[in-house]
């Protein structure tokens, strides 16, 4: 059984269809990359999997770990092990990074019947992960993402992922806006989390990130449909030829 199985997923907003029948299987231990031009529906797919409720799922099924993901609230999906790194991490003034993350971790632990972690025990864990992402300890007591640079925000997402240890991690354009040094740090952080129990879905516009997080599979999403799937070499082909070559395929693809 796959960890994640998406079947014929149709999603829209305000009667405008964005995803037009997505099929996707992701097994534990695999890294998949979903690539596509702007507006192809990549972020919509990521957000629907994280259970954002502003989208209308018009048909299709998503099973995660044998359960109906579409029946879950965002917090339940998170507690079941789904994590999305946001393309645009949200600033939350007035809540410290450390407090936020410990609350999240404890919410998840509580859901799983584990004891809560107190501030003293949380500190070493938090420090260790900060180090992994080469982040300043001062960020701990700053408000969540407030006044963070673009790169700091993206690193903060991966920091959260490292602390929460999800089974299914979805990275929504985590590479966009990152300079090459920050990109390497983020990629190393993600790469360090690869293991046989965990699946990672990397949503990206560019191939560059995939030099550092080499995927097992690459899917090309154009106009709400996956038009090609293949190995890592597909990403290189895209880099070479651009999405234009595949947009034609989207037009000719048979609607599911």
């Amino acid at each position, binding site marked *: 059984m796959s960890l994640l199985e998406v079947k014929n997923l149709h999603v829209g907003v305000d009667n405008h269809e964005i995803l037009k029948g997505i099929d996707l299987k992701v097994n534990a231990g695999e890294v998949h990359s979903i690539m596509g031009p702007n507006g192809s529906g990549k972020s919509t797919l990521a957000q629907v999997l994280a259970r954002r409720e502003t989208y209308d799922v018009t048909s299709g099924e998503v099973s995660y770990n044998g359960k109906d993901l579409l029946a879950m*609230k965002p917090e339940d999906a998170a507690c079941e092990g789904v994590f999305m790194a946001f393309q645009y991490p949200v600033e*939350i003034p007035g809540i410290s990074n450390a407090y936020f993350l410990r609350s999240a971790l404890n919410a998840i632990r509580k859901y799983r019947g584990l004891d809560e972690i107190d501030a003293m025990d949380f500190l070493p864990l938090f420090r260790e992960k900060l180090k992994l992402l080469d982040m300043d300890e001062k960020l701990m007591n700053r408000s969540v993402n407030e006044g963070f640079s673009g790169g700091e925000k993206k690193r903060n997402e991966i920091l959260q992922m490292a602390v929460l240890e999800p089974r299914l991690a979805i990275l929504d354009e985590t590479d966009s806006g990152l300079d090459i040094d920050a990109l390497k740090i983020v990629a190393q952080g993600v790469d360090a989390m690869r293991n046989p129990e965990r699946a990672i879905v990397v949503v990206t516009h560019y191939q560059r990130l995939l030099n550092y997080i080499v995927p097992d599979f690459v899917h090309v999403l154009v106009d709400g449909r996956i038009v090609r799937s293949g190995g890592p070499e597909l990403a290189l082909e895209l880099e070479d030829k651009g999405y234009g070559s595949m947009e034609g395929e989207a037009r000719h693809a048979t609607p599911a």
Partner: protein
Amino acid sequence: MVTATQHLESYVEGFSEFEKLATGHALPWLRKLRRDAFASFCEVGFPTTHDEDWRFTNVSVIAQTPFQLARNGRARLSQKELEPYQVAGIASQLVFVNGRFVRELSLLGKLPDGVKVSSLAAETSSNPGAIELHLGRYLDGRDAFCALNTAFAEDGAYVHIRRGTLVEEPICLLFVSTGDDAPSMSHPRNLIVAEENSQATFVEDYVSLDGGAAFCNTVTELVAGDHTVLSHYMIEREHKQAFNISTLRIQQGRSANVVSHSVLLGGALVRNNVHPVLAGEGGECLINGLFIGNGHQHLDNYMLVEHASPRCGSRQFYNGILDGHAHGVFHGRIIVHEDAQKTDAKQTNRNLLLSDDAQIDTKPQLEIYADDVKCTHGATIGQIEGDALFYLRSRGIDEVSARKFLLFAFASECLDRMKHGPVRRYVEGLINHCLHQMANSAPGAPTENRREDTGRNWGEIG
């Protein structure tokens, strides 16, 4: 829009009875002060919404209710009943029941030499000269509620701090209204005089023990001598039928640094006036406020900051959270007098509306008569952000908790301006409790009746 049919007759009757027996009735200056104030009240009458300063707050319900002076000041209260209202870790708390000082219920711990904490009535009897020096000297005589308070001024707190005295312990004043069969009113009058170079913190805490229509009309005159450093807290958390009108009049000397914190959580109709006059050069004033309302609460914050001397700074920061049909008002008036060059005044009001029926009126009003000044103001109105809510939930935090997180984060902007210590912990506890109830209020269908937007939604108004 309403010109109230005002029950002034009942006040006339009440006043003539009161002034015959009130403490200090034999002191000519006090008799005159009360009489003049009462005449002034009768002349101006209760304000209406035609009055610019009262445009958003209709007090006709107060004007039309035949309130009687509360007389059961000492009845049936035990210290145990007041325990929940004690700030943990403090040594002195003066308790006033329906406006009257009750020594047996008060906590009179040791305060440093140079601090005198007493009641206005006691001090009027024993040391009237000290009272005469300040009482009523700074108030706006044309304000109906201030005039009414002065007319009925008899008891409240009297605090005197000798020059150079540092009081680390906060001095807490607890005002308890106990309700009555008939609508009752009280007019607590506090006089706080801090001499040159002294430091202290004062807390006024308004609570009610029983239901019933109660009208508390309170005035505090705070005289901040040169180079003083003072903090004042006003906490309103009476029950949801109470009317509370309060005025804090601050007279600031040279280089005096005064902080006023207002936390409005309770009451049906609440008006909180904060009126500092920066009379000495180089004074600084921070006015920090938080108001949280639901149901049909009406919470009005009226600031009048007068810059009367050069090189003074003032800051106003008010955050409001309104749910249900609650109505909030922020009216921030800044007057910069002709001589007050190099004034630096800033005003910010941020509001969070949680329901479609909640309402906020926010009004900045700058009157500048000097030419070298810096004045800024701004106001925002927003909702709980859908993005922020989703962000928290996507990390495993349930919806009610996420909502509470965001409300508390918004409120904490005000808390962060309070100095760490027992009072801040106390206020934090009250706010936490209040927001917890608010976040829980509609757990079943939180998204249906509530406003939520995606994206950035702080609309700049000012």
